[in-house]
């Protein structure tokens, strides 16, 4: 073997070795650590986010477009969310409040203009918000904080190598799902796909991240999503267009009465 060829082979094997070492280091993150990191990312304090939600129902329902304002306060111990429809005019002001703290079941209130304010009961948690495929419990639960986490494989999603994290609820993690699988882009710490499985073991819902971008804090986040429920022909597309973190909200903003005003 001549010297040039040998040098080339060394270079190739050397590079391959480096790549595999780097890959091994990336993969070294345990499932629990990975889930904890992702859980911390979700608990991002106080923020206001603007969303455009497209709900397509091919079988006769047509397409609904909503502009939504989301106010949130997420900490390790509690999550408070207020979703308010800004547009279209005929639905402006429709809103809901969602609160979850510790291991307690989530609760809240739903407001429909001009004057209907009803409590958000446990029975309604699996309903879609504003008629979409995204349910209240999808928003309230943080499956990265569930008791059982495991990395069950790797897969490439949209040409991005991902680790598949499987989260199973422990005792007290009240949820209607038996497991949730998330495809995590480890380099950017972004979830590119989520699959939620019902008690029957069948896939109940799939959420794909369709766009990744940087938020106002410079963090890389999923900013557009597509949601589909198994057995339903509707698709919900969510497109985030603006976010502001580090907000200070008065405590009254997260009360049922606050839903009556849009601000």
């Amino acid at each position, binding site marked *: 073997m001549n010297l040039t060829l040998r040098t080339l082979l060394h270079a190739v094997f050397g590079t391959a070795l480096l790549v595999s070492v780097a890959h091994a280091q990336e993969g070294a993150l345990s499932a629990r650590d990975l889930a904890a990191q992702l859980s911390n990312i979700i608990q991002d304090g106080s923020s206001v986010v*603007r969303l455009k939600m497209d709900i397509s129902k091919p079988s006769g329902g047509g397409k609904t477009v909503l*502009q939504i304002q989301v106010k949130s306060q997420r900490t390790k111990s509690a999550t408070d969310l207020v979703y*308010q429809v800004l547009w279209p*005019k005929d639905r*402006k002001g429709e809103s809901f409040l969602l609160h979850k703290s510790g291991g307690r079941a989530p609760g809240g209130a739903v407001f429909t203009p001009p004057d209907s304010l009803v409590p958000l009961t446990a029975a309604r948690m699996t309903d879609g918000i504003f008629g979409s495929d995204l349910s209240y419990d999808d928003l309230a639960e943080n499956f990265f904080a569930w008791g059982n986490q495991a990395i069950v494989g790797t897969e490439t999603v949209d040409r991005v190598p991902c680790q598949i994290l499987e989260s199973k609820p422990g005792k007290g993690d009240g949820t209607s799902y038996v497991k949730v699988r998330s495809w995590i882009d480890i380099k950017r710490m972004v979830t590119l796909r989520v699959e939620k499985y019902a008690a029957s073991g069948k896939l109940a819902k799939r959420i794909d991240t369709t766009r990744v971008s*940087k938020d106002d804090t410079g963090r890389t986040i999923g900013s557009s999503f597509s949601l589909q429920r198994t057995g339903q022909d509707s698709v919900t597309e969510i497109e985030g267009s*603006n976010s*502001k973190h580090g907000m200070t909200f008065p405590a009254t903003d997260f009360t049922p009465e606050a839903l009556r005003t*849009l601000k």
Partner: protein
Amino acid sequence: MVTLVGMASGYEKGIGKQLDAVGIDVVVSNMSGGIMPKTFDESLQEKVAALPRVAETTTVLMRMMSVEDAPIMMISGREWGGFIWDQMKVLEGRMLKDGSEKAVVLGTLAAELLRKKVGDTVQIEVEELPVVGIVDGRSMVENGTIFLSLQVMQEISGEEGKINFLDIRVPPNTSKAEIDQLCKDIKVIFPEGRAMVANEVVGTSQGFRVVRAMSWSTSLLAIIVGVLGVMNTMLMTVFERTHEIGILLAVGWRRRRIVYMVLCESALLGLLGGIVGVVLGVLGLITLGASPGIRGFLEPDINPKLMLIAIAIAVVVGVISGLYPAWRSSRLTPSLALQN
């Protein structure tokens, strides 16, 4: 190549045209955030206005967000009375009355995209603002924008006292060196930001560089594929014409002349391919420019220089692709070629 580079170049030119139309000489921003810069305190305006060689300053808070059922578009909150309002020509309705009027004027394309006319309302954040006018902004980017006063924009977006652009006009006949000095002076009082000569904004922005690099690198891949394709075609031609080349060599053609002949054919193939490619590229550009996601945002740049470059590259690709087949054909032995 024509389509990709034309789109990227159109994007750059659109922004350049916008700055020209508005008459901005220097732009101050904090571009570290990518395409849309980070906000900073509007008090910077006072400090910059006090610098020598600054004739006028004005401030802008710009956001890109989806509005109603339209895709993401630009919303520009501009300091009322600032010089950047001057270039707008009211086509319908009227201009804002003052900086506190809670209303918007729409660029022509923005009005078309949102399907709005004077008297309608536009929902921006939690506010429903009346459309009081439709304006010609004199550039594609301006025409695709929703305009309102800076004060109202800051109020409805909860960014009181914040801006993300400070635009500067310098006195006429200010030299390039003086403008560069001004940019350095601004850097001293605004270290986290950057002051750039307006026509250099596009060239120095990280976002634009990425767009340009991506369009050229994709084009380069297409060129490499093109080289392989033409080389394959020319090799096939040489193989099929072995007998003919043998006769030419037998009747006294020099090897150099055979090489020249193959290279000429290859270059001609490149030229014809280039012309057809440019025509298809221009059609692609026109189609892309008219597509819903791009219309109003990007004005495809169909420029003769790019077309000539594309054709020249195609000819060079043709010649390079013909080198190996030409060498192969010149190495033929007349007797063996004739037997073939």
